[in-house]
């Protein structure tokens, strides 16, 4: 019996550790330890139910173990704030007044397209529609929006962390020569660009690594 308890605790701690390592993109609006519990508990309930050769007490002990671990984690989080940061993580400010914080994105195993997707889900379609954007500890996106929406046209990613999106560049009427010219004007190399998006009105959001973002105006074939 005690073996089941110890083994369940080991699996719980391992899963929790792995979930924390995976970052916020893997968590669906739950605290990491809640997510781990929901992963484990269904299996724990099912195995003794379906396999009659396993005493049902094994399942019950494992579920009680999960309950005890949940309560312990919850109490620790309540009493010791640093423990809460370790177990559940803390919010990450991924957009600040300078633009995208690339370090925070990397730390959470996210890329610019993930960020833009999360923003769209939250109702913001342009990177400069918000003053601040952050991923909460449970993986959901929150933002402090600007008073006015900057554009009514959908932006497309042209460069994502130094990688050009050839398809989008062609669609927007950017060939290599034009892109290189724009980069030269901004005194940036391709690999130095954190993000570059353009919308149907030719409004470009351009951010060079280590610098504040810029809003540029270019001509595009605004077919979208």
């Amino acid at each position, binding site marked *: 019996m005690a073996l089941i308890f110890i083994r369940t605790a080991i699996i719980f701690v391992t899963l929790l550790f792995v979930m924390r390592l995976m970052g916020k993109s893997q968590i669906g609006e739950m605290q990491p330890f809640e997510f781990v519990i929901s992963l484990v508990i269904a299996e724990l309930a099912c195995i003794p139910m379906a396999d009659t050769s396993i005493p049902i007490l094994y399942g019950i002990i494992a579920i009680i173990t999960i309950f005890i671990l949940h*309560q312990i984690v919850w109490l620790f989080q309540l009493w010791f704030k640093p423990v809460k940061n370790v177990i559940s993580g803390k919010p990450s400010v991924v957009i600040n007044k300078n633009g995208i914080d690339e370090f925070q994105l990397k730390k959470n195993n996210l890329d610019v397209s993930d960020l833009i997707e999360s923003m769209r889900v939250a109702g913001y379609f342009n990177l400069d529609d918000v003053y601040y954007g952050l991923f909460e500890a449970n993986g959901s996106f929150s933002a402090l929006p600007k008073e006015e929406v900057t554009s009514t046209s959908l932006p497309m990613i042209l460069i994502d962390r130094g990688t050009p999106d050839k398809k989008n560049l062609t669609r927007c009427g950017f060939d290599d020569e034009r892109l290189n010219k724009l980069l030269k004007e901004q005194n940036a190399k391709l690999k130095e660009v954190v993000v570059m998006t353009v919308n149907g009105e030719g409004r470009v959001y351009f951010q060079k690594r280590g610098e504040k973002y810029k809003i540029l105006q270019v001509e595009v074939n605004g077919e979208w």
Partner: protein
Amino acid sequence: MVKAICYTVAAILLCIGLFIFAEWYLDKQFEEFSAALDSLYTKIEDETATQEDGFAVRTLWEDKKSKLQILVPHNDISYIDYWLSEACGLLYNGQYDLALGKIEVLKEISKNLPDAYSIKLENIF
């Protein structure tokens, strides 16, 4: 908050109690079963064992089995059923040499089974 702490402490105490009881109970049941097997083994060695002696051990095991199934996976229990049935069959035919081997296996199983459920590093991993 107090209620949650009480529930947690109660669950921990319940688990600890159950673990201690399970360990003690398994040891005790298998000790008794091993003692019965030892006595049957001695009788088989002396070639004085009868089918009734085999049935007596089997009845003892049947009694214990019904309770042990709460704590031990049923596959482990069916191993003992299997070897015990074979031993009884051999005793019925008076094949003491072969029966001795089966009882030896049973003794080994009843010695090792409680160990397989005790808290040891090799059992955890």
